């Protein structure tokens, strides 16, 4: 690392690892419930496990993005973070809000709106927290020596992500309107502005790892984020097919969603092309694997599997079934979890000064978690497709269908065990690196 204040990033990454571990635990609770083993039901009902699982995902990814920003922005703008102490306060309050929300979910304290379950009073604290974060980042950029495209794209993503949180805080009496604006948050985050954050981190990693000229990488970054917004903004329409919105969304959502994989394809081709073009052979092979991995798996998970059920005539049957869980798992894993793990893999040796990156453990972590997640996706897919045909086409009762597809959750749990082993190894490596130190500073 080049700036002392970059050490702040480490603690956001550590929080991410902790929350990821918890997320997996709650995932297993749900998998077992789907198999029929719901012994925990009186204490942790399914809706609790579900809210905890998805909210932990959001918080650990955001914590990872924040850590990434605290590492990348000083380096890109050539300036220390303006206020490190405030950064630590922001870290602690983020963790506190997260913990309070999650405990609340166990006591029926929530706002039952998918992905946005955090109760309203805590929403305001989230807003204050994110404003603090943005304040530090923007002030650092302002005082910095330079404003690179990479830093600007990433910051733009973070600012828009904060702004888009607001429509989700308005009350509507009408369920359709509620849902309409809920997707402004959820969809425009994950299929819009989060891709700017991902693109920014990816560009930073590619510049560092491949050594390809910044001008070339940043030019293509513009093209990719351009494709993302052109397809993604109107692609929101695929959430408006069957919730009481007008029919024209079927056409608009269908056409623009079909274009969404292009942005991810662009990302994958871009990463692979830059890797091939690069003459520098960076020794951190693990970071390279995660970087190329995120570009490729996001194309498969978010791009292709999204497209698999986004056409209106398909979505009519798959909407509200386990097919969505199939797409959701590989999409979040490929696009967002892997980019966070990539930036962690790249920064840890720099933050701690220990070059532990040619270990077998790291390679195993990468492959086990990826193969495990692909297996889980297949299990969800098989269960989902069976559900669609039995329930939606044949008219078999919901509960009977769930009995039929229980077995696929056994497969899911086996694959999830493999995935968890991979993540366990990743965290083991994380701990082995130890804490960041000023001795790791390089001129």
């Amino acid at each position: 690392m080049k700036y002392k204040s970059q050490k702040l990033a480490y603690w956001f990454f550590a929080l991410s690892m902790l929350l990821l571990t918890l997320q997996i635990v709650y995932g297993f609770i749900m998998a077992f419930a789907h198999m029929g083993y719901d012994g925990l039901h009186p204490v942790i009902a399914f809706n609790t496990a579900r809210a905890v699982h998805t909210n932990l995902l959001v918080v650990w990814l955001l914590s990872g993005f924040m850590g990434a920003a605290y590492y990348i922005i000083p380096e890109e703008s050539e300036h220390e973070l303006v206020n490190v102490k405030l950064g630590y306060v922001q870290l602690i309050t983020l963790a506190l809000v997260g913990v309070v929300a999650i405990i609340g979910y166990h006591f029926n304290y929530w706002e039952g709106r998918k992905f946005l379950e955090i109760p309203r009073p805590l929403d305001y604290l989230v807003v204050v927290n994110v404003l603090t974060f943005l304040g530090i980042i923007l002030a650092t950029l302002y005082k910095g020596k330079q404003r690179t495209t990479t830093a600007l794209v990433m910051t733009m993503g973070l600012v828009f992500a904060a702004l888009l949180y607001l429509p989700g805080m308005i009350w509507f009496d009408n369920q359709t309107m509620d849902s309409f604006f809920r997707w402004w948050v959820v969809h425009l985050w994950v299929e819009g502005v989060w891709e700017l954050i991902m693109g920014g981190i990816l560009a930073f990693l590619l510049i560092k790892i491949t050594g390809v000229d910044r001008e070339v990488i940043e030019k293509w970054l513009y093209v990719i984020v351009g494709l993302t917004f052109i397809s993604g903004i109107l692609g929101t329409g695929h959430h408006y097919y069957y919730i009481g919105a007008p029919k024209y969304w079927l056409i608009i959502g269908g056409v623009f969603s079909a274009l969404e994989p292009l942005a991810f394809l662009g990302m994958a081709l871009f990463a692979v092309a830059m890797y091939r073009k690069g003459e520098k052979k960076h020794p951190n092979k693990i970071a390279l694997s995660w970087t190329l991995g995120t570009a490729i798996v996001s194309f498969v998970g978010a791009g292709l599997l999204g497209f698999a059920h986004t056409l209106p005539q398909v979505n009519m049957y798959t909407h509200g079934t386990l097919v969505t869980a199939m797409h959701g798992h590989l999409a979040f894993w490929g696009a967002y979890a892997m980019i966070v793990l990539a930036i962690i893999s790249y920064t840890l040796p720099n933050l701690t000064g220990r070059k532990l990156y040619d270990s077998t453990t790291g390679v195993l972590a990468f492959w086990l978690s990826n193969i495990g997640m692909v297996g889980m996706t297949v299990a969800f897919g098989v269960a989902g497709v069976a559900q669609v045909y039995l329930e939606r086409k044949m008219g078999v009762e919901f509960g009977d269908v769930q009995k039929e597809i229980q077995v696929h959750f056994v497969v899911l749990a086996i694959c999830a065990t493999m995935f968890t082993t991979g993540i366990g190894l990743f965290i083991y490596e994380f701990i082995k690196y130890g804490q960041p130190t000023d001795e790791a500073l390089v001129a």
Partner: protein
Amino acid sequence: MLSKSQARLFFLGGTIITFLIFIGLSWHSLSVEVPKKTHEENITAGVIRGKHLWEDNNCMGCHTIMGEGAYYAPELTKVIERRGEGYVKAVLTSKTSWAPRGRKMVPYAFSEADAAALIEYLTWIGNTDLNGFPPKPEYKSTINPK
């Protein structure tokens, strides 16, 4: 060959154009179409109370409504039409876990008034125009057609 400033123009131009179209369509949807398709005039105090109860108890954490939610318990958009008010009321007011086919629901033991509000909410949802969702099953046994 594409220059960096052309790439930036593509990004900014594309974003602004699609964003404006999106805002225009959203405005049209919400001010003209959605009130008609959802029969907004039928949103009574009971429906609103039902929506509050729906959210306060995170029903979406297991069920789906309008196809949105979790996939652990049945889709409820047309539940009143499918099961009738009596059945739904029995589930909502039950003091023990309702567990058809073994899968348990949280025993909410709602009061009569709360159950009535939730039923009003579900009835209103059931009458919204969702462009054909949920689809009607299309097959019957073809081995022994009767």
